[in-house]
Protein backbone atom coordinates (compact mmCIF):
# COMPACT_ATOMS: atom_id res chain seq x y z
CA UNK A 1 0.00 0.00 0.00
CA UNK A 2 1.15 3.50 -0.81
CA UNK A 3 0.12 6.01 1.81
CA UNK A 4 0.28 9.73 1.05
CA UNK A 5 -0.25 8.95 -2.62
CA UNK A 6 -2.69 10.86 -4.79
CA UNK A 7 -6.13 9.30 -5.31
CA UNK A 8 -8.09 9.89 -8.53
CA UNK A 9 -11.68 11.10 -8.16
CA UNK A 10 -14.12 12.09 -10.85
CA UNK A 11 -16.22 15.17 -10.04
CA UNK A 12 -19.47 15.80 -11.90
CA UNK A 13 -20.95 19.27 -12.21
CA UNK A 14 -24.47 20.03 -13.38
CA UNK A 15 -26.58 22.90 -14.63
CA UNK A 16 -25.53 26.26 -13.13
CA UNK A 17 -22.49 24.70 -11.43
CA UNK A 18 -21.22 23.26 -14.72
CA UNK A 19 -21.86 26.69 -16.24
CA UNK A 20 -19.91 28.38 -13.44
CA UNK A 21 -16.82 26.22 -13.87
CA UNK A 22 -17.16 25.94 -17.64
CA UNK A 23 -17.11 22.14 -17.57
CA UNK A 24 -19.36 19.30 -16.44
CA UNK A 25 -16.69 16.88 -15.35
CA UNK A 26 -13.36 17.37 -13.56
CA UNK A 27 -10.74 14.72 -12.82
CA UNK A 28 -8.89 15.57 -9.65
CA UNK A 29 -6.40 13.90 -7.33
CA UNK A 30 -7.07 13.98 -3.61
CA UNK A 31 -5.08 12.57 -0.70
CA UNK A 32 -6.12 9.16 0.58
CA UNK A 33 -8.61 9.42 3.47
CA UNK A 34 -10.07 12.40 1.68
CA UNK A 35 -13.63 13.49 2.36
CA UNK A 36 -16.18 15.31 0.24
CA UNK A 37 -14.99 18.50 1.96
CA UNK A 38 -11.50 17.93 0.56
CA UNK A 39 -12.88 17.43 -2.93
CA UNK A 40 -14.87 20.67 -2.65
CA UNK A 41 -11.78 22.50 -1.34
CA UNK A 42 -9.88 21.35 -4.39
CA UNK A 43 -12.72 22.43 -6.65
CA UNK A 44 -12.76 25.89 -5.07
CA UNK A 45 -9.26 26.58 -6.38
CA UNK A 46 -10.63 26.50 -9.91
CA UNK A 47 -11.77 29.55 -11.93
CA UNK A 48 -15.51 30.25 -11.55
CA UNK A 49 -15.79 28.23 -8.33
CA UNK A 50 -16.62 31.41 -6.41
CA UNK A 51 -20.11 30.98 -7.85
CA UNK A 52 -20.64 27.73 -5.91
CA UNK A 53 -22.58 28.12 -2.65
CA UNK A 54 -20.80 27.57 0.69
CA UNK A 55 -22.56 24.25 1.31
CA UNK A 56 -23.69 22.64 -1.93
CA UNK A 57 -25.55 19.34 -1.98
CA UNK A 58 -23.25 16.46 -2.87
CA UNK A 59 -23.50 12.84 -3.95
CA UNK A 60 -21.02 9.97 -4.01
CA UNK A 61 -21.60 7.36 -6.71
CA UNK A 62 -25.10 8.70 -7.43
CA UNK A 63 -26.31 8.70 -3.80
CA UNK A 64 -26.76 11.79 -1.65
CA UNK A 65 -23.81 12.15 0.73
CA UNK A 66 -22.63 14.43 3.52
CA UNK A 67 -19.75 16.84 3.46
CA UNK A 68 -17.75 14.70 5.91
CA UNK A 69 -18.24 11.40 4.08
CA UNK A 70 -15.11 9.56 2.96
CA UNK A 71 -14.21 9.48 -0.73
CA UNK A 72 -12.46 6.47 -2.20
CA UNK A 73 -10.31 5.97 -5.28
CA UNK A 74 -12.42 5.83 -8.40
CA UNK A 75 -15.46 7.40 -6.75
CA UNK A 76 -17.75 9.66 -8.70
CA UNK A 77 -18.49 12.77 -6.66
CA UNK A 78 -21.32 15.00 -7.87
CA UNK A 79 -22.00 18.56 -6.81
CA UNK A 80 -25.74 19.00 -6.99
CA UNK A 81 -27.37 22.39 -7.66
CA UNK A 82 -30.86 23.00 -6.23
CA UNK A 83 -33.00 20.48 -8.12
CA UNK A 84 -35.73 21.79 -10.41
CA UNK A 85 -37.49 18.76 -11.83
CA UNK A 86 -41.22 18.40 -12.37
Amino acid at each position, binding site marked *: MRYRSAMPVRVLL*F*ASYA*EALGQDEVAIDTPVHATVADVLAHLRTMPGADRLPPQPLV*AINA*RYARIGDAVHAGDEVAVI*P*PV*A*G*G
Partner: protein
Amino acid sequence: MRAAIVTQPIDVATLLAEVAALGHGATSLFVGTVRDTHAGRHVTGMEYKAYEAMALHELTAVVAEAEATFPGTQIVCEHRVGELTLGEASVVIAVAHAHRASAFDACRFVIEELKRRVPIWKREHYVDGTRAWIDPTAPAPREAHA
Protein backbone atom coordinates in the same frame (compact mmCIF):
# COMPACT_ATOMS: atom_id res chain seq x y z
CA MET B 1 -44.67 0.37 -9.83
CA ARG B 2 -42.43 1.87 -12.46
CA ALA B 3 -40.26 4.98 -12.66
CA ALA B 4 -38.38 6.15 -15.72
CA ILE B 5 -36.36 9.02 -17.10
CA VAL B 6 -37.32 9.29 -20.77
CA THR B 7 -36.26 11.28 -23.80
CA GLN B 8 -39.40 10.82 -25.90
CA PRO B 9 -42.84 12.42 -25.40
CA ILE B 10 -44.74 10.86 -22.48
CA ASP B 11 -47.95 9.05 -23.40
CA VAL B 12 -50.58 9.66 -20.73
CA ALA B 13 -52.86 6.86 -21.98
CA THR B 14 -50.07 4.32 -21.59
CA LEU B 15 -49.48 5.30 -17.98
CA LEU B 16 -53.20 5.26 -17.17
CA ALA B 17 -53.53 1.78 -18.67
CA GLU B 18 -50.51 0.63 -16.73
CA VAL B 19 -52.02 1.39 -13.31
CA ALA B 20 -55.53 0.22 -14.20
CA ALA B 21 -56.94 -2.79 -12.36
CA LEU B 22 -60.48 -3.96 -11.65
CA GLY B 23 -59.97 -3.44 -7.94
CA HIS B 24 -59.14 0.23 -8.46
CA GLY B 25 -61.99 2.70 -8.24
CA ALA B 26 -59.89 5.86 -8.36
CA THR B 27 -57.01 7.13 -10.46
CA SER B 28 -55.18 10.40 -9.86
CA LEU B 29 -52.99 11.65 -12.70
CA PHE B 30 -50.62 14.59 -12.59
CA VAL B 31 -49.13 16.19 -15.67
CA GLY B 32 -46.45 18.85 -15.43
CA THR B 33 -46.10 20.93 -18.60
CA VAL B 34 -43.79 23.62 -19.88
CA ARG B 35 -45.31 27.07 -19.26
CA ASP B 36 -44.88 30.14 -21.41
CA THR B 37 -44.16 32.34 -18.41
CA HIS B 38 -41.93 32.09 -15.37
CA ALA B 39 -41.22 34.75 -12.80
CA GLY B 40 -42.68 37.31 -15.14
CA ARG B 41 -40.47 36.40 -18.12
CA HIS B 42 -41.77 35.05 -21.39
CA VAL B 43 -40.45 31.52 -21.91
CA THR B 44 -40.07 30.01 -25.39
CA GLY B 45 -38.79 26.55 -24.51
CA MET B 46 -37.21 24.43 -21.84
CA GLU B 47 -34.30 22.07 -21.53
CA TYR B 48 -34.34 19.37 -18.82
CA LYS B 49 -31.09 17.80 -17.72
CA ALA B 50 -30.76 14.89 -15.28
CA TYR B 51 -27.93 13.21 -13.45
CA GLU B 52 -29.47 10.17 -15.01
CA ALA B 53 -28.28 7.25 -12.88
CA MET B 54 -29.01 9.13 -9.67
CA ALA B 55 -32.28 10.61 -10.94
CA LEU B 56 -33.60 7.15 -11.80
CA HIS B 57 -32.51 5.86 -8.41
CA GLU B 58 -34.17 8.72 -6.53
CA LEU B 59 -37.34 8.67 -8.62
CA THR B 60 -37.67 4.94 -8.11
CA ALA B 61 -37.16 5.44 -4.36
CA VAL B 62 -39.82 8.18 -4.28
CA VAL B 63 -42.35 5.94 -6.04
CA ALA B 64 -41.51 3.00 -3.77
CA GLU B 65 -41.91 5.21 -0.69
CA ALA B 66 -45.26 6.46 -1.98
CA GLU B 67 -46.52 2.90 -2.48
CA ALA B 68 -45.31 1.99 1.02
CA THR B 69 -46.85 5.09 2.59
CA PHE B 70 -50.18 4.55 0.82
CA PRO B 71 -50.63 0.77 0.76
CA GLY B 72 -52.57 -0.58 -2.19
CA THR B 73 -51.53 2.19 -4.58
CA GLN B 74 -50.16 1.30 -8.01
CA ILE B 75 -47.89 4.08 -9.28
CA VAL B 76 -46.10 4.84 -12.53
CA CYS B 77 -44.00 7.97 -13.09
CA GLU B 78 -42.06 9.18 -16.11
CA HIS B 79 -39.91 12.30 -16.20
CA ARG B 80 -38.72 13.57 -19.54
CA VAL B 81 -35.33 15.13 -20.24
CA GLY B 82 -33.95 17.00 -23.24
CA GLU B 83 -35.43 19.88 -25.21
CA LEU B 84 -39.15 20.45 -24.68
CA THR B 85 -41.47 22.87 -26.41
CA LEU B 86 -44.18 24.90 -24.69
CA GLY B 87 -47.10 22.81 -23.48
CA GLU B 88 -45.21 19.52 -23.61
CA ALA B 89 -45.32 17.22 -20.58
CA SER B 90 -42.14 17.13 -18.53
CA VAL B 91 -43.50 14.72 -15.93
CA VAL B 92 -46.53 12.45 -15.65
CA ILE B 93 -47.55 10.56 -12.51
CA ALA B 94 -50.40 8.02 -12.54
CA VAL B 95 -51.68 6.56 -9.27
CA ALA B 96 -54.53 4.09 -8.91
CA HIS B 97 -56.10 2.76 -5.74
CA ALA B 98 -59.36 1.26 -4.57
CA HIS B 99 -60.31 4.64 -3.09
CA ARG B 100 -59.69 8.25 -4.05
CA ALA B 101 -58.02 9.61 -0.92
CA SER B 102 -54.95 7.40 -1.25
CA ALA B 103 -54.78 7.97 -5.02
CA PHE B 104 -54.74 11.76 -4.60
CA ASP B 105 -52.39 11.75 -1.61
CA ALA B 106 -49.87 9.40 -3.18
CA CYS B 107 -49.87 11.39 -6.44
CA ARG B 108 -49.20 14.60 -4.52
CA PHE B 109 -46.50 12.84 -2.47
CA VAL B 110 -44.66 11.77 -5.62
CA ILE B 111 -44.58 15.22 -7.24
CA GLU B 112 -43.56 16.96 -3.99
CA GLU B 113 -40.75 14.49 -3.24
CA LEU B 114 -39.64 14.48 -6.87
CA LYS B 115 -39.27 18.25 -6.78
CA ARG B 116 -37.45 18.05 -3.48
CA ARG B 117 -34.79 15.48 -4.27
CA VAL B 118 -34.65 14.02 -7.78
CA PRO B 119 -31.53 15.50 -9.46
CA ILE B 120 -33.08 17.08 -12.53
CA TRP B 121 -32.55 20.68 -13.61
CA LYS B 122 -34.21 22.88 -16.15
CA ARG B 123 -32.95 25.70 -18.30
CA GLU B 124 -35.43 28.17 -19.63
CA HIS B 125 -35.11 29.74 -23.05
CA TYR B 126 -36.31 33.31 -23.35
CA VAL B 127 -37.61 35.43 -26.20
CA ASP B 128 -34.35 37.41 -26.34
CA GLY B 129 -32.35 34.23 -26.95
CA THR B 130 -30.88 34.02 -23.46
CA ARG B 131 -31.10 30.90 -21.31
CA ALA B 132 -31.00 30.40 -17.56
CA TRP B 133 -30.87 27.43 -15.22
CA ILE B 134 -33.73 27.66 -12.77
CA ASP B 135 -33.01 27.77 -9.03
CA PRO B 136 -36.29 27.07 -7.21
CA THR B 137 -34.65 28.16 -3.95
CA ALA B 138 -34.03 31.67 -5.29
CA PRO B 139 -36.74 34.21 -4.51
CA ALA B 140 -38.97 34.74 -7.55
CA PRO B 141 -39.46 38.40 -8.43
CA ARG B 142 -43.10 38.27 -9.41
CA GLU B 143 -44.67 34.90 -8.67
CA ALA B 144 -44.07 31.64 -6.85
CA HIS B 145 -42.41 28.75 -8.64
CA ALA B 146 -44.70 26.20 -10.35
